[in-house]
């Protein structure tokens, strides 16, 4: 192994000679600096490779002696990783720093060299006093580095930083000297092996060491000085501080853990968790990106420290130190790369006052970095967080679990809020290109992808099929330059190929849903061909979301399931974000999506999926709650309408028709894992039933008042999912049959509606129904499609929708849920309102002169609609086409009440013969049609305004088309039911969290002395707590 001392000699030699080298030119000097960093990186990687292939950790003495006489450096796995991380961050930051370093005095370059060497020294040394020296080298390097390019705010921040740093180093020195006095050594390993430090004096001495390191780790509330620095320094400096410096300091903390007693460890855990929570709360209030990243930084570091302490404190997790290394290490790696990349990226972007959207590559990097930071799959943070949550659940630390997940959710909120704003940019501004400054962020993003993917494939998710979404997204993203239509076909083909690959391993339920989920993805990929052009981003995301849905079906373990679930959430969120006004809806989509996912995660981790006794209890209920959030049950539905409305039209269709079935599938899978029962007992079923019913009614009522065609459909989807939940909750043969039947039907007619509406919007250029009218003559196929779809949706015979209604009422009355049945009846009635309004306002009534040139929708929309119409017709005439498979799926888990006699389906209460109904209706209709035609004498078509209008000519179509606020009397009568209580509740909730964050951030007054006061008070309080513990 390379002796690390050579590297120190190299660094110092280079630093000392730098003033001389600089006379040859600054470029050469900078090349030397980066070269030295590269040498560190090479050494780190070399050590890692040796150690990972079974090499032993090695100690290196100085001056020909070993411990205790001399200082010893150690190269073990953690040290090698730390050195690699530090050097890597230094090189990543180089892309953004180089230009500034060239223009600034040489001190900046020297400071960079010193900081990186100091941090590596912190990582490598095993001597407590030597640790102090390296802490000071990196601190003084940092002080110099903060102000190197002379930005005024950074100078102010640096002074505050120095005050706090000075306090910390004094504390550390006091600790070191008393450790020496008591343990008679400065070597960590020797000190840890003895018992000299276990008395009260030893505890106090170690406390000082610990307090100093904790302060250096920027704990809440003693971290204002650090956040100010993060915000104001050159982004490259912030990146190194947040990435490399935090890594080294955490490793220092890790090193002294063996010296700590249980009381110390509790302090670390408590302080870390408080920092995590407070950092994220305050971060959520922050609108300046760099400062926001600063808060996120301190929060993440707090979490890592807490995990390390908890692991040691009580053997959290299975394997003790291995667990801690994996989880804390994984979180740290994730934080390191993501935060470094984000600081560099945000710095580059925010520096330029450029307000435009990001260029595609920058956007991809920003997306990857943000997603990684938040802990989405497949990045290292995801795997680490899963293990953490699992361990916390196993050991029953629910408060910590809730805190970790809540904090992560907050973090997701503000990071994605920033990302959303950056993605969209401001209208009319040129896209922001990063140029060379993009190298660092892009490289960090690539490393994250590589680390996460490797960690996943070689770890808990070796099944390559589950990685298909990511592969598809990557491939299509790389091909994003090629014509969009080609990508659409590729995307559809990918869905088909995935379906073929996965079909064999799915059970009946999986196959049933695969038809909807994968078929839906393919369908809407084809529909997307309606527009030419590259349509950047659409196809990769659509394909990823589709395949992720497939992966959900194919998942075998809870982790695999959750992996696919989060993949689906992430991809669909980006689809929403891609919409023109998708920024706000996408934010609430992802926040609720992740909120649901975290509930799911907690439940899964606690064994809510294993079908064991835990699953029947509240872990199962947690899973259920998570799924309900994703399904958009009333109360947590607020994310749904905006997302469906503002995403691209084909994406909306995909979300509503296909993706909304994913939670339904998961509900069934959950119930099946418990032997066709719900967790929590019979009350769950009753409550779920009412919840579904409320969703059905609420969705329908809200849909009635919308002017926006897509919002109408969105609320309609909400309502339909409500029926599916209601029927599912009945937990008997009829109920499940109904639920599955409704799901498939909903897929069919909601696809038709969204396809038709996409065509209408494309042709008219508006989503407001009252701005349309009379389109039946221009778009007859779309009209027919909508007509059939609304007949099916409303449940009017003879189309297949009636089957759903019949099954539903049979179920409810048979089950004894009478009031539920009555409310369901009411809700179904309300559906007529918005459906009639939909078709009337768009296709009937007065055509607008401005829309006289409108044509039928493109073939890419019409053909799928024709196909769906044919399918709908077929299953209406022959209901058994759908019901036989469904009945077989439900099987004999429950007492049988439904059975076919020929074409007649019999329930406990009644019967329904779909085929005969269709024949009779068809016959009667034909008869009436014949009668009408036979008696139609001399029919004349008249022009548009030829109507009897109180003997006057109507003024304009715009004023004659009755469409705006169509159901105003209804609002007058029943408007009190739809006052957006859930929205107000969540708004109030958000305001509450924001005001907590707002109150907390008042601590950060900007006064360096106050920050110092926080530091000292923090230490004092910690000491008091130590006494209590």
């Amino acid at each position: 192994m390379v002796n690390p001392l050579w590297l120190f000699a190299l660094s110092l030699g280079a630093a000392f000679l730098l003033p001389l080298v600089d006379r040859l030119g600054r470029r050469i000097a900078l090349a030397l600096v980066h070269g030295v960093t590269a040498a560190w990186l090479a050494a780190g990687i070399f050590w890692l490779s040796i150690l990972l292939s079974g090499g032993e950790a090695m100690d290196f003495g100085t001056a020909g002696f070993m411990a205790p006489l001399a200082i010893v450096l150690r190269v073990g796995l953690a040290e090698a990783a730390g050195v690699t991380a530090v050097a890597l961050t230094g090189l990543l930051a180089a892309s953004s720093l180089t230009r500034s370093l060239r223009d600034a005095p040489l001190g900046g370059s020297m400071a960079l060299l010193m900081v990186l060497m100091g941090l590596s020294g912190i990582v490598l040394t095993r001597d407590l006093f030597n640790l102090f020296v390296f802490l000071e080298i990196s601190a003084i390097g940092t002080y110099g580095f903060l102000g190197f390019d002379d930005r005024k705010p950074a100078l102010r921040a640096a002074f505050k930083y120095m005050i706090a740093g000075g306090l910390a180093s004094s504390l550390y020195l006091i600790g070191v000297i008393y450790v020496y006095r008591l343990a008679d050594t400065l070597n960590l390993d020797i000190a840890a092996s003895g018992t000299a430090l276990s008395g009260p004096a030893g505890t106090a001495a170690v406390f000082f060491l610990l307090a100093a390191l904790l302060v250096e780790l920027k704990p809440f509330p003693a971290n204002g000085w650090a956040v100010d620095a993060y915000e104001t320094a050159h982004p490259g400096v912030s990146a190194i501080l947040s990435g490399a410096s935090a890594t080294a300091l955490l490793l220092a903390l890790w090193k002294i853990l063996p010296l700590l007693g249980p009381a110390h460890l509790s302090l670390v855990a408590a302080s870390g968790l408080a920092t995590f929570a407070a950092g994220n709360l305050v971060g959520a209030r922050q609108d300046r990106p760099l400062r926001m990243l600063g808060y996120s930084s301190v929060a993440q570091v707090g979490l890592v420290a807490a995990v390390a302490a908890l692991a040691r404190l009580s053997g959290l997790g299975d394997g003790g130190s291995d667990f801690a290394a994996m989880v804390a290490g994984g979180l740290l790696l994730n934080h390191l790369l993501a935060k470094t990349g984000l600081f560099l990226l945000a710095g580059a972007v925010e520096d330029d006052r450029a307000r435009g959207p990001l260029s595609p590559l920058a956007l991809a990097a920003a997306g990857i970095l943000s997603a990684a930071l938040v802990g989405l799959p497949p990045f290292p943070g995801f795997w680490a967080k899963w293990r953490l949550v699992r361990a916390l659940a196993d050991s029953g630390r629910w408060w910590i679990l809730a805190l970790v997940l809540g904090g992560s959710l907050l973090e997701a909120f503000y990071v994605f809020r920033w990302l959303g704003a950056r993605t969209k940019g401001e209208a009319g501004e040129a896209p922001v290109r990063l140029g060379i400054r993009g190298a660092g962020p892009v490289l960090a993003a690539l490393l994250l992808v590589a680390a996460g993917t490797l960690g996943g494939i070689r770890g808990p998710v070796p099944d390559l099929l589950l990685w298909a979404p990511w592969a598809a997204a990557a491939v299509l993203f790389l091909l994003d330059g090629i014509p969009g239509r080609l990508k659409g076909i590729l995307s559809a083909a990918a869905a088909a190929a995935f379906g073929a690959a996965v079909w064999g391993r799915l059970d009946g339920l999986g196959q049933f849903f695969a038809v909807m989920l994968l078929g839906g993805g393919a369908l809407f990929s084809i529909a997307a061909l309606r527009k030419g052009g590259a349509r950047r981003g659409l196809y990769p995301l659509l394909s990823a979301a589709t395949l992720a849905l497939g992966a959900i079906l194919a998942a075998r373990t809870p982790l695999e399931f959750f992996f696919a679930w989060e993949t689906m959430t992430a991809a669909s969120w980006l689809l929403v974000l891609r919409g023109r006004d998708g920024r706000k809806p996408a934010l609430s989509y992802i926040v609720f999506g992740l909120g649901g996912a975290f509930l799911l995660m907690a439940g899964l981790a606690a064994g809510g999926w294993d079908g064991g006794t835990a699953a029947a209890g509240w872990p199962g209920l947690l899973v259920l709650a998570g799924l309900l959030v994703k399904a958009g049950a009333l109360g947590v539905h607020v994310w749904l309408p905006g997302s469906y409305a503002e995403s691209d039209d084909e994406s909306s269709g995909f979300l509503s028709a296909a993706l909304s079935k994913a939670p339904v599938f998961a509900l069934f899978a959950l119930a099946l894992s418990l032997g066709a029962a719900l967790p929590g007992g019979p009350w769950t079923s009753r409550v779920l039933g009412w919840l579904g019913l409320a969703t059905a009614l609420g969705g329908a009522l809200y849909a009635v008042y919308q002017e926006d065609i897509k919002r109408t459909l969105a609320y309609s989807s909400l309502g339909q999912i409500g029926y599916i939940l209601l029927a599912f909750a009945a937990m008997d043969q009829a109920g499940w049959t109904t639920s599955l039947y409704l799901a498939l039907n909903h897929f069919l007619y909601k696809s038709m509606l969204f396809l038709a509406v996409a065509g209408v919007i494309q042709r008219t250029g508006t989503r407001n129904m009252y701005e349309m009218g009379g389109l039946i003559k221009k778009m007859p196929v779309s009209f027919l499609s909508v007509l059939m779809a609304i007949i099916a949706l409303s449940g009017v015979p003879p189309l297949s929708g009636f089957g759903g209604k019949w099954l539903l009422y049979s179920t409810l009355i048979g089950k004894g849920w009478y009031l539920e049945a009555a409310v369901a009846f009411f809700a179904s009635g309300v559906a007529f309102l918005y459906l009639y309004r939909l078709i009337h306002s768009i296709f009937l009534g007065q055509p607008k002169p401005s829309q006289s040139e409108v044509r039928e929708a493109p073939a890419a929309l019409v053909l799928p609609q024709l196909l769906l119409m044919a399918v709908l017709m077929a299953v209406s005439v022959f209901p058994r086409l759908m019901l036989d498979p469904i009945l077989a799926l439900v099987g004999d888990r429950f007492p049988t009440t439904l059975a076919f006699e020929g074409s007649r389906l019999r329930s406990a209460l009644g019967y329904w013969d779909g085929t005969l109904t269709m024949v009779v209706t068809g016959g009667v209709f034909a008869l009436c049609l014949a009668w009408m035609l036979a008696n139609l004498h001399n029919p004349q078509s008249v022009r548009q305004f030829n109507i009897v209008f109180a003997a006057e000519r109507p003024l304009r179509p715009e004023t004659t088309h009755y469409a705006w606020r169509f159901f105003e009397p209804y609002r007058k009568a029943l408007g009190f039911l739809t006052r957006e209580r859930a929205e107000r509740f969540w708004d109030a909730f958000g305001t509450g969290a924001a005001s907590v964050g707002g109150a907390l951030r008042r601590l950060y007054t900007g006064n360096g002395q106050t920050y110092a006061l926080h530091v000292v008070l923090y230490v004092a309080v910690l000491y008091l707590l130590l006494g209590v513990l």
Partner: protein
Amino acid sequence: MMRRVLVFLAVAGLAAALLPLALGTGVPEAPGALATAYLEDAPGDFGAANVVTAIVVSYRGFDTLGEVAVLFAATAGVGALLTRKRLGIGDAEPADKPAATEILVTATGLLTGLLVMFGVYIFLHGHLTPGGGFQGGVVIATALLLGLLARPESKLSHGILSAVESLSGAAYVGMGLAGAFLAWGFLDPRVLPLGRIGSLVSAGSIPVIYSLIGLKVGAELSGILDALKGDRE
């Protein structure tokens, strides 16, 4: 008021943590095992009469190298911060700088040479008597400080200072490497013969290292003083 209370509480809290430790550990009766080992082995190992120096330059020489690096980093930082450009000082010399007093100017002329000599003496005898490279370097820098006080308008040759600093630093690192290649480890002073304890030429390369450190520290502190004067380019 609130603030004062909090400051009081903070200081009181710190006192509560610190005083038991400072008062309670008392005065040791005898050095511990490590100290004893140093006291007994250092003369034999390195031939240095001053055990502290043996520790500072060899056993814990890595600390000292780091310490040099700290000073170096601070110098670099100060130098980068306080340039004329950044301080917003134009080329024009401020006219109203008071001239130094006659006493100071005369005394400086007398003392400068003595101070430099004394500094050199201190770091050359670092292995024998109290003192060493840092102390010597500081004394040398004092001479320069006197010069600056006596003639505020004088300019130190920044290039020479920087070259001395660089070369002595690099040479120090070179001595460390020499220890690794010629003796038993990085910074091992046993590159040169150890000599007789107590004589000037003894203790291996310790005097050489201390001289380099003295030069470097002298140059660095002079540089800092010069920079704080605020008229560096």
